[in-house]
């Protein structure tokens, strides 16, 4: 469909309204500014965990097998019976395989989730970035990735490798700005609403619980 309305007319109108120009159009990109002092990975994990917890998220950390009991308990307490794992996400698959006999959980399919009457499902996914400042995990739709595990499920399990932790949101955008994928999703805790009498309720449209699993994975 051809663009409607008159673009040149708008730009002309705006131009006429301005009496001359400032200098923002060619100012240097602040991205180039110097990075802060280096930070140990432990410190970064601590900042991430604290920020995410204060946004009603849960954090479990350790090697894959040490996190399983707590994770399994968390999923059971939310009534989870099925797991959604994106195709090609080997770390998520590994975690799901280890979890399944403990639940017992079964694998859910995307189409099941998109066509109503779905079981209570946890979506497990490897995050692409995590941000220490705000306790945020980042998923994108780059190269065939799906966003559904953190969107249409009841519990969102985000796998965070320590290596993907960055300091601030700026770092993520700088890495992606050259060719941004269609979707960059910054996720901090579960879905929430306060729209009825300002009462905080989790699980508005998205997941009602969000668990970050900080673990070194094989991939």
């Amino acid at each position, binding site marked *: 469909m051809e663009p409607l309305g008159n673009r040149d007319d708008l730009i002309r109108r705006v131009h006429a309204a301005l009496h001359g120009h400032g200098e923002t159009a060619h100012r240097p990109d602040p*991205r180039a500014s110097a990075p802060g002092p280096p930070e140990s990975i432990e410190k970064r994990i601590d900042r991430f965990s604290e920020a995410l917890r204060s946004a009603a998220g849960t954090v479990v950390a350790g090697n894959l097998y040490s996190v399983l009991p707590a994770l399994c308990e968390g999923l059971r307490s939310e009534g989870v019976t099925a797991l959604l794992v994106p195709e090609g996400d080997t770390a998520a698959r590994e975690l799901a395989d280890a979890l399944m006999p403990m639940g017992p959980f079964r694998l859910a399919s995307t189409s099941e989730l998109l066509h109503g009457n779905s079981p209570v499902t946890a979506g497990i996914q490897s995050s692409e970035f995590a941000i220490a400042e705000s306790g945020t995990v980042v998923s994108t739709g780059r190269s065939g990735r799906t966003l559904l595990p953190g969107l249409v499920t009841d519990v969102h399990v985000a796998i965070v490798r320590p290596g993907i932790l960055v300091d601030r949101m*700026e770092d993520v955008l700088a890495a992606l700005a050259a060719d941004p994928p269609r*979707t960059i999703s*910054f996720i901090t805790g579960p879905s929430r609403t306060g729209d009825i009498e300002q009462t905080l309720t989790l699980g508005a449209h998205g997941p009602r619980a969000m668990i970050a699993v900080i673990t070194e994975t094989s991939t």
Partner: protein
Amino acid sequence: MEPRCHDFSRNVERALANRNLQAAISRTTGRFLEHRNAAVRSFPGDFEAAREAASRLKLATLRDLDIHLARFIDEAERRGAAVHIARDSAEARDISVRIAREEGIGLAVKSKSMATEEIGLNEALEAAGVEVVESDLGEYIIQLAGEPPSHLIAPAVHKTREEVARLFADKLGEPYTEEIPELVAIARRRLREKFLSAGMGISGANFLIAETGSIAIVSNEANARMATTLPRVHMVVASIEKVIPLMSDLPPMLRLLTRSATGQPISSYVSVLTGVRRPGDVEGPSKLHILLVDNGRSAILKGKYREMLKCIRCGACLNICPVYQTIGGHAYGWVYPGPMGSVLSPLLLGLREASALPDASSLCGACADVCPVKIPLPDLLLELRADARAQGHRTPAEVLGMKGFAAIMGRAGILEALERIGGVFSQLLFKDGKIPWLPFRLSGWTDRRDFPAPAVRPFRKVWKSKRGVLPWNR
């Protein structure tokens, strides 16, 4: 939405008579403020410096808005968007309807957007046979109730849980429940069906990023993510002042926006959306329409009100405003309430419609103190009052009253004489310092509260006796 700003005094009467409304509003605004203040205290770095930087960035961007807009349009189109331009609300409605028709849309899900409220999008699409469902819980509630939003970020603050329960029972046929988690679950279930079957998702934009033609949207419920991920068409409606130059400008703006709005360091979700789905992508809309709405902004840009276009719609000025806290959002008569609405509505609708709004302020300045982009709201309100007077939107009685006031205040002798007469009256008639009743139109004041009686000893006398000199007698 038809503006009813001209009915301001009647709207206020109605709001003041509604006790439920006042309880709800003072609870909400109080809580928002508490959270905001806590978030400001724990701000990483210097909050004042961040405000100053954000204000400068917005102002500098506005100064070069033509360049940034052109860049935004080019970059968005390069990545597969169709960018449409609407001069005014009517054109915006017309373009939206044509988009919906051309794309064959029967059902659209919407995430919260003030710009769509401003242009009256829902009514236009419904009239064209498109079902439009609001998906933000607050918006969903007021859509079912057939009411406009009453707060920028909490549109249903004026509704009690009982009212919501009744609404869901009557309009949706759901079993009556006053349990909030159950009410939320009902909306989640009902709206999930809509997300999965809608052909088009409609959203606003918190920021438009010129560098990449991207759209940034914040939400807590995940409805904006659903509406922009699941349907095959995405339509964005945004006004032209939402542009920021660079990706790297986004984080500092977000840090201020969410803290000022709800006190969160970041909202649960931030989506940065660029173009349409790429070859190999498994999700995302294959069509993206971006509708840029001018609707009077280019005219505002021209003159002394430019700073109003810095607004990032955080709602902090509403929460802190003693007038908003008393009358709530609906009394302002249009989509934008509170101090920001008292400036923006007259600018967008004209003073003939909305000249009463700039008067609804004691100019206490609290709004300017909290505004994360440092908009001088009280100054702009004063300017608008002056304009209203210059354009003749003042009754002869008001003009005469002000002239008289100025004449008295400008002449110390007359003022002193009047003070003396007033003092005598007070001593004789109003011993408790209150005037309980005034005649004629002045009863508008004394119907609800007493008028303070003139002091028996005027302030200037007291001052003289205590400190000796008045500045002009030095």
